[in-house]
């Protein structure tokens, strides 16, 4: 049959690569013959040949002695696919289409294997294929593909590089843990692969960032789905540990990526993951010096970096939708009716299950609240630069009153979500950290709350404690705010009713 013929040809290829080096002339001749003899001359034959080769390689892996050479076929297949990325004439299909076809076929073979009843699915050969492709490509692209002597092809490959990585990422997204749990551990390993992750982070103009964020969010969503209160499976714990370790790696090498994308990560991160939250928000730009956050005399007005606007890669305005107009209008000219619209708009239509510390479901649109808070912060920062800091470090400014009123009129849950979102902006020294510290400190000591004062203070303290009772790191801004609250003259934390009614908290505060 046709398939059997393809099996034979592929087997010949595998044997050839065991006898000569991959850049031997014989290899080029073999590939040439494959095209000339119709094995790879058009889309249909490419699809059928590749499908047969993938299936045979997976079969070979499963049939191999596990202590022996299990990847011989897969390694040869990856070499074939990569070589064809370079040497083909691309008449019947383009290079972009070729890559898509290859990944499509692999995904089909993969999903069929994964979904079989009584499946013998093993993620390793698929992982190996992806890893090899990354490795071969990495080797090829060195110094702008200098190994490619044909200048036209070299130019094409340079332009194709971006497409290569983003397409790879988009297919990895398809086989994410929620969809194919049998590939979960391979997924995380590929996401963090040394030939993938740093390359995605380094692509020109941050062009890999969006797709990389999608993958990290895929991982978080999987964890969120299965991190309930009723015992966490060992496997999920291990997934979590791997995710944590990868994020720490990113924080070390590319803190700016975590900084600029923190908003999207906070939306996807499971609410109870307090340490991982801190790790992400404690990322510091490489050249910044951190003043001592425990210093009583610390004055952010005097710190130059506290005037700097942090870059936000994903504009929260996108998530405001129809909310943008009332929010922006309010910031320009505050009015009660606009405030009413905003306050009424933050509630969800239905309850949603979402586990956090102290709650099991939410009735507030958390994403919208976060978007509003960050947008207000961004606008405040821009205003400060345009006019003066006095315009925003002012409890009468519309930036402040919008948030104040949201808290004043909102339910306890709204208060919690708004304060939580504000506290997420307390990071390394920058204008957002500076302004939100001002806002939270003012709100904590304000007399404008009336009867609500006690609850507001408690929720602020709750949010602070939730961030600092966990193991380090702690974001600089959170420590600064806490230090400032501990040293207030007009409010003694230990005498607050909310503290007194929880002796364990009282004890911690006494020690501090």
């Amino acid at each position, binding site marked *: 049959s046709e398939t059997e013929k393809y099996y034979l040809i592929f087997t010949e290829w595998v044997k050839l690569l065991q006898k000569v080096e991959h850049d031997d002339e014989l290899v080029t001749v073999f590939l040439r013959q494959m095209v000339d003899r119709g094995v790879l001359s058009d889309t249909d034959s490419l699809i059928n040949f590749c499908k047969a080769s993938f299936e045979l390689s997976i079969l070979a892996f499963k049939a191999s002695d596990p202590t022996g050479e299990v990847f011989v076929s897969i390694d040869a297949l990856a070499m074939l696919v990569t070589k064809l990325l370079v040497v083909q004439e691309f008449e019947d299909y383009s290079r972009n289409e070729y890559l898509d076809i290859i990944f499509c076929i692999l995904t089909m073979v993969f999903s069929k294997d994964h979904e079989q009843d009584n499946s013998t699915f093993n993620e390793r050969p698929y992982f190996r294929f992806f890893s090899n492709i990354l490795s071969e490509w*990495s*080797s090829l692209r*060195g*110094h702008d593909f200098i190994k490619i002597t044909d200048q036209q092809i070299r130019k094409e490959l340079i332009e194709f590089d971006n497409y290569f990585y983003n397409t790879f990422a988009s297919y990895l997204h398809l086989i994410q843990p929620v969809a194919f749990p049998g590939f979960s551990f391979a997924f*995380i*390993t590929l996401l*963090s*692969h*040394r*030939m993938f*992750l*740093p390359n995605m*982070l380094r692509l020109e103009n941050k062009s890999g960032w969006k797709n990389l964020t999608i993958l990290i969010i895929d991982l978080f969503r999987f964890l969120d789905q299965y*991190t309930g*209160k009723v015992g*966490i499976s060992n496997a999920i*714990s*291990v997934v*979590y*540990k*791997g*995710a*944590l*370790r*990868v994020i*720490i*790696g990113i924080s*070390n*090498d*590319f803190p700016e990526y975590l900084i600029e994308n923190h908003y999207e990560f906070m939306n996807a991160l*499971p609410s*109870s*993951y*307090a*340490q*991982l939250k*801190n*790790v992400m928000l404690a990322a510091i730009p490489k050249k910044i010096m951190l003043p001592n956050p425990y210093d009583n005399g610390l004055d952010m007005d005097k710190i130059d970096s506290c005037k700097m606007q942090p870059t936000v890669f994903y504009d929260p305005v996108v998530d405001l939708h129809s909310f943008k107009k009332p929010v922006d209008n309010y910031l320009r000219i505050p009015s009660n009716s606009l405030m009413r619209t905003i306050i009424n708009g933050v509630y969800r239509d239905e309850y949603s299950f979402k586990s956090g*510390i*102290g*709650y099991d479901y939410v009735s507030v649109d958390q994403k919208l609240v976060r978007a509003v808070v960050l947008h207000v912060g961004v606008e405040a920062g821009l205003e400060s630069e345009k006019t003066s800091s006095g315009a925003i470090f002012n409890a009468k400014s519309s930036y402040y009153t919008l948030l104040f009123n949201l808290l004043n009129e909102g339910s*306890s*849950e709204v208060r919690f979500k708004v304060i939580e979102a504000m506290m997420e902006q307390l990071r390394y020294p920058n204008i957002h950290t500076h302004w939100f510290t001002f806002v939270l400190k003012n709100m904590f000591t304000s007399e404008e709350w009336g009867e609500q004062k006690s609850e507001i203070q*408690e*929720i602020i*303290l*709750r949010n602070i404690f*939730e961030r600092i*009772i*966990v*193991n*380090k*790191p702690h974001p600089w801004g959170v420590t600064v705010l806490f230090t400032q609250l501990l040293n207030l003259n007009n409010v003694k934390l230990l005498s607050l009713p*909310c*503290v007194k*009614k*929880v002796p*364990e*908290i009282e004890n*911690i505060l006494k020690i501090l």
Partner: protein
Amino acid sequence: FGLEALLPLIKQDDTELSKKYNHAMTIGTDLSSMLHSLGIPRDNQRYRILDTFQSPWAETSRSEVEPRFFTPESFKNIPNVLQSKVTPPVFNSIENDQQRVTLFQDETLFYLFYKHPGTVIQELTYLELRKRNWRYHKTLKAWLTKDPMVEPLVSGDGLSERGSYIFFDPQRWEKCQREFVLFYNAIM
């Protein structure tokens, strides 16, 4: 949404309360050992780690991985490497290639011995190292030679001696001096 909700996180010795959340994920853990396993920092300096990242878990990171590297064309197909008339170099004949091996440094011989098991060159380097008074220890799988400064003490039964020897450690890739009891039937 108040402070009381934090009690399960604070009162970890209360088994009923503390069961509510998975502490590894909320309170988290001391990250020092994780940072150490990642090489952050290394020698008190901050280095990039993602380019040599082995695996998301320390348990599956037990071997180094080859990082991205680039070999310029001028580094390839260099003639006369390892005294070879053929490029790339080969060692295929015990008789003909023996002479070439006499010109190599000790470390080159050790490298070739360990790198190419079951081959002509492993045999050739074995013979040459023996000529230089190195002996191969069968159980340690390491080479050693007598420390010229110390005279060993032979045991009563004549089966071993205690002395000072220079070992070549293939893990650390260096010669090191050690006191040792050498059994004669263990070396070749």
